[in-house]
């Protein structure tokens, strides 16, 4: 299981890196989302996998019984997912608005803020 997840993380990182290097805005967004997912899965995997033992105290018990999953990585991922959701929603709206205002989705054409004024490359 760990091996499988490791492969998935690797694929996500590779795909994410490839996509954020593209010139199309949509692909860049997908790249960022992939990278976020890859990082979340990585926390999950590196925090040790425990199968079929959720981190809940069973009915009528005072504490955990071995084996139990470490709840902290799950809490971290949940937080990261929620934050990622908000940020990605904002990013999509921003990119859409940029597309409407600037009139192109080719990132290579968006260089007006990097040029010296009055200079056309």
């Amino acid at each position, binding site marked *: 299981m760990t091996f499988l997840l490791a492969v998935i993380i690797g694929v996500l990182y590779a795909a994410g890196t490839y996509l954020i290097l593209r010139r199309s805005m949509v692909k860049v967004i997908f790249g960022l989302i992939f990278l976020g997912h890859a990082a979340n899965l990585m926390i999950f995997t590196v925090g040790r996998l425990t199968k079929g033992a959720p981190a*809940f105290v069973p009915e009528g018990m005072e504490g955990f019984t071995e084996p139990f999953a470490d709840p902290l990585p799950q809490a971290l991922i949940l937080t990261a997912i*929620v934050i990622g959701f*908000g940020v990605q*929603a904002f990013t999509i709206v921003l990119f859409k608005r940029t597309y409407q205002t600037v009139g192109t989705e080719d990132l290579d054409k968006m260089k007006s803020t990097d040029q010296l004024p009055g200079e056309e490359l």
Partner: protein
Amino acid sequence: MYSVILATASRYLLILLLMFSVFLLLRGHNEPGGGFTGGLVAAAAYALYFIANGIDAARTIVRFDPLRIMAAGLLIAIASTFPSLVAGNPFMTGVWINTGIPLIGKVGSPLLFDLGVYFLVLGIALTIIFSLAEEDRL
């Protein structure tokens, strides 16, 4: 696109889903659930209503400005930290009162915090849904 079936169903589903969201909110104390999921389910209920009946109908049924709901949620969450201050415990420590009433049992400030999260999530989700819907109409 208006569907009579969905519009009729959505009215009943709205109530059911809202009840379910409150159930999730209260269940969150000891089991999976809580303010976050509850708020999302409530937002989904209104989203369904909006899909069936249109944005204006949804706006009327929500009544409050979603941003206000969000701010109210934040206020409740902040207010939930005050009992610990009064009790002299470290910041945000849960304060519990055993009411002794059956079915209700112990009530505490974490519940208040969860309620704040519920409204916060509901407010944010509604803000996103409504503003996207209104942009579409333009």
